[in-house]
């Protein structure tokens, strides 16, 4: 049984690595196509891409057990009869001699340690920033007229924070800098973050995307953040009834940053996000949106592909793991 667990974990690692390596080449090519999707659709697709090595690798590893599982239901369906001697058997009924090899365990433990250390770093950073912002939130008072927490600061900012029960924080500086109409757009944008649970998803994806190579991970996470901001812009536009109002609010916040009364030193880090968001809000570009028909088609195609891939994946796993442990 232990050997089967080891093989399963090795298969997961190998397939995760294969998917990750494939995406290093594919993602730059896919990026321009993904950019044509609506922000909401784009954010969903990118989230799945971020989780693909970890989740996809796991699914492929489980798929490898399908032929052996099928033998359990249909005993005459013994797929292993044509294996030669010494070939690794990736199944629960034919256990190989090299089951539980030390090399296999070293790889599994090594990868496990790497994941635990990396995930811990992600979680520690999250916890630190959570405590930091909670500290800020403690200094805020709830304004029932606006429906948000007000921080006593001249700086103009608005943020949503928290994984469980997210809160929207606004500064008094922002409420002074913006007209009620534009402030409503900002609040609607932040509410959209609360409703979409963006902080929670960022935490989950921050951990699951660790299976990607760093360069791809950085690109995908950056694209997800941008897509989420745009999705919240669109939602805010729908709430206030005018997308251009959200664009005005973005520019008004930028403008207020230049006003010495409103504090916060300018931090020159590039402003591509704001420029793209404003241009998108004032344009009437057509984008591809999600529909239930797409889901049904994807599920049908996915089921067919999985059935076709089960046996080849099974043999591929046997070959690759056999090479590793022999």
């Amino acid at each position, binding site marked *: 049984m232990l050997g089967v667990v080891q093989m399963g974990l090795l298969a997961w690692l190998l397939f995760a690595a294969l998917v990750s390596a494939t995406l290093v080449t594919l993602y730059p090519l896919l990026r321009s196509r993904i950019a044509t999707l609506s922000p909401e659709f784009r954010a969903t697709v990118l989230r799945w891409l971020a989780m693909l090595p970890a989740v996809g690798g796991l699914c492929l590893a489980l798929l490898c057990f399908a032929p052996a599982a099928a033998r359990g239901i249909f005993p005459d369906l013994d797929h292993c009869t044509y294996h030669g001697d010494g070939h690794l058997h990736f199944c629960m009924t034919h256990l190989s001699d090299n089951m539980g090899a030390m090399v296999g365990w070293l790889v599994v433990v090594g990868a496990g340690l790497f994941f635990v250390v990396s995930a811990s770093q992600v979680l520690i950073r*999250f916890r630190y*920033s959570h405590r930091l912002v909670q500290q800020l939130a403690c200094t805020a008072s709830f304004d029932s007229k606006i429906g948000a927490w007000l921080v006593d600061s001249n700086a103009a900012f608005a943020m949503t924070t928290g994984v469980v029960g997210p809160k929207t924080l606004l500064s008094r500086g922002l409420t002074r800098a913006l007209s009620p109409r534009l402030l409503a757009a900002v609040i609607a944008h932040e509410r959209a973050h609360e409703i979409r649970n963006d902080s929670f998803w960022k935490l989950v994806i921050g951990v699951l995307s660790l299976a990607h190579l760093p360069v791809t991970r950085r690109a995908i996470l950056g694209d997800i953040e941008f897509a989420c901001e745009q999705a919240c812009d669109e939602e805010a536009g729908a709430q206030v009834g005018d997308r251009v109002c959200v664009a005005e609010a*973005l520019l008004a*916040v*930028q403008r207020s940053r230049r006003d010495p009364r409103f504090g916060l030193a300018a931090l020159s880090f*590039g402003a591509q*996000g704001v420029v793209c968001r404003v241009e998108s809000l004032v344009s009437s570009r057509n984008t591809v949106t999600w529909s239930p028909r797409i889901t049904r088609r994807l599920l049908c195609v996915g089921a067919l592909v999985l059935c076709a891939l089960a046996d080849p994946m099974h043999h591929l796993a046997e070959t690759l793991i056999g090479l590793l442990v022999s």
Partner: protein
Amino acid sequence: MSPTRAPFLGDLELAVMNHLWAGGKGEAKDVHRAIGRRRRITLNTIGSTLKRLFEKGLLRRDKVSHAHIYSARVTRTEFHQQVLRDVVHTVMDGESGAMLAAFVAVAEQVGPKELKRLENLVAKRLRAHNKEDS
């Protein structure tokens, strides 16, 4: 404020600081009377909290007779500003990653020419909107 970053304060620590900032007396038994009893916390716990806040650099301590009298070393505004600076720097350094989503990322600063161009673009769109409506 001497610490480079604002120290994290727990719930009780924050309550004690709020009491002192509001002008409350700084002897342990006075603080206990004001906030400890309500929370069913012992005098010792209040004493430990005051000591911790002193060690974090947020309180001053003077000895009067046998008792220690604590007073705030930083004002509420100074503390809040330090917390805000820490939040800003954390976002800028990308450390927080995701615990917060800001309307406009603090690190973003559009140049003046670009800002003018975008404002003209928005104004043009609004004019076109108004023309359609009228």
